[in-house]
């Protein structure tokens, strides 16, 4: 492997360092309470989504709803039509961006949104007061409010998986967590998130075309590091400076089926 520091690496390292520095400052008490800000931990989880491979089957949304026991009215990850390339339909799956400089973390009046040391933007559902300021602030519409209590069976269970986290009560905001529970349990069992399906987010594990790639930005051998090195990628609404941890490989007509 080349030792040369290319521009992407440089930007990544700079972004991470800047993210760490900023998060340390911004997270304030959150950092003090959680022990670390975004970008501090040994692993930095990220997702790369290859738009050439997404066929809008919606499996990711369903698996997510089963594994995270989500109200059918809510989608943590959804698939949007995103125009055409050479007459072929292109889609854009949208989970939470897990921004390194997350507006939701900044605005939350009670620190219910916070950074984990591994970069995941987490929700503390026991702390959330349901003011919905984070929904107003999120540039990606990645947050959903529990307008209604979710009682009764989850239509996505058991076909798309079994619930792994407690159901959220009425009146709190929720969002994609990169399936932190699968990552944490997987790491304990010696699995590698991004490589082993059981330790990867449910959407990554279920995707039939392999459009979603997950892994550690700090590990040069991880799937995401390799994908970022070998492809031109972009992130959503980059001009806002939120530094998302979800990267997209734009659709390439030649790489697409049919």
């Amino acid at each position, binding site marked *: 492997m080349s030792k040369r520091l290319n521009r992407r690496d440089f930007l990544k390292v700079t972004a991470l360092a800047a993210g760490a520095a900023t998060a340390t400052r911004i997270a304030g008490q959150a950092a003090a309470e959680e022990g670390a800000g975004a970008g501090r931990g040994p692993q930095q989880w990220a997702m790369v989504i290859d738009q050439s491979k997404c066929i809008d089957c919606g499996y990711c949304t369903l698996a997510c709803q089963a594994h995270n026991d989500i109200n059918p009215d809510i989608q943590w990850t959804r698939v949007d039509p995103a125009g055409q390339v050479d007459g072929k339909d292109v889609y*854009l799956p949208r989970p939470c961006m897990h921004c390194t400089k997350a507006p939701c973390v900044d605005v939350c009046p*009670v620190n219910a949104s916070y950074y984990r040391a591994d970069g995941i933007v987490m929700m503390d559902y026991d*702390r959330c007061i349901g003011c919905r300021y984070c929904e*107003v602030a999120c540039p990606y519409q990645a947050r959903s*409010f529990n307008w209604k209590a979710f009682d009764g069976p989850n239509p996505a269970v058991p076909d798309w998986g079994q619930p792994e986290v407690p159901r959220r009560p009425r009146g*709190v905001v929720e969002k994609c967590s990169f399936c932190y529970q699968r990552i944490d349990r997987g790491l304990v069992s010696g699995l590698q998130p991004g490589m082993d399906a059981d330790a990867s987010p449910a959407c990554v594990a279920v995707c039939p075309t392999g459009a979603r790639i997950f892994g550690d930005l700090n590990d040069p051998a991880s799937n995401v590091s390799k994908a970022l090195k070998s492809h031109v990628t972009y992130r959503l609404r980059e001009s806002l400076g939120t530094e998302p941890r979800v990267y997209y490989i734009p659709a390439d007509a030649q790489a697409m089926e049919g």
Partner: protein
Amino acid sequence: MSSKLRIRLPAPRISPWFAWLAVLGMVLLAALYAGAQVFMNGLWVTNLTDLVPWGFWITLDLSSIALSAGAFTLCAAVYLIGLKRYQPVARTATFVGLIGYTMAMLALLLDIGRPDRFWHALVYWNSHSLLWEVTMCVMLYLTVLVFESLPIFANFGWLRQRLPRLANAMSKTHHYAPYLAIAGLAFSMLHQSSLGAVYGVIKARPFWYKPEMAVLFMASAIVGGISLTLFVSMVAARLTPKAKINDALMERVAYFVAWALVGYLYFRAWDVLAQHYTYEPGRTEGLELLTSGPLSFNFWVLEILLGAIVPMVLLLTPYTRKHPFWRTVALGLVVVGVITYRWDTNLSGLLVVISYLPGPAAIKYTSYVPSLIEVISGIGIIAYGLLAFSLGVRYLRVVDHRLTVEETKTVEVKSGQTIPA
């Protein structure tokens, strides 16, 4: 039915006071029912959505706080600047402020998804969140208002008779008025501006993302808050002999409101004008909603023409300013203008949905009309405010410009000397 049995009922004499209480009581009952629906079923009974998560209640909340700004402004004028003769007006403003902030609290309790956790902001601090700062300042300022209002509650006849010593002690907090005014000024300036900044720091919504938000919210709160205090005082004085106003005092404060409106309108005009130049995705669309879209009647007619220009002219013209009717109309219009500004600001930012898809920003629009339950429960909060004020006028003499503070002064008197009056 035979009409042999005739019962002669004495002609019921319903006093206007009783009728007023009955109307408010009915509105409050309906609102209690609506509020119970919200608490039992959750917020899906509203028309709020994930795209428009803030609506009617947040406007009520923001307006209640803005229109309470007369309290800190007039208390600062009286106790810090030393304009002592306005003390009776500041007294009314303090009571109006206390009502306004409790109204805001009620609206917030309805609006947040977990009202049982309202205290979380006091325990789990996020000092980077403007909403946290607003919550803390509002709580602290409400405490200040309670202390500032103690001398007013000491006027309650029942209390004076039954617990004269407590009433006396409550009266004495008045001696701390200057210190309370300093605290009130600090907390109010912080959160009145921060409420604008709550919107002003949201980079994802370019229509709001500007530093003027804080300044405009502050300026409009001062104008609107003083106007509401004068307006309710004048209306009360017209309706009941329990309220006594000094019309010359009202006129002077109204004259200040007129010039404050000039200043506010200047800032507001440049705020709107400057945004017209160059296209900025999201911002331009928000402005279009306001100036030529569904909110344009609100903006041009209610906020700018009736809410600012007409009252400014009415209050700057000596004839209409001195005329109690026109002065009351003008002050009421200012209040309408401030409420409209809050409503429009919230909606023009939320109704524009900026796509996160790559490429040139695609703009879509959403819509919001409050549900009946939102409106009824909101009107109930207003009814609570009116009830509290009416009781205050009747039993605490909150609008009584003949009342002056007992200014005790120790004078050394030699034997045989006469004390000058």
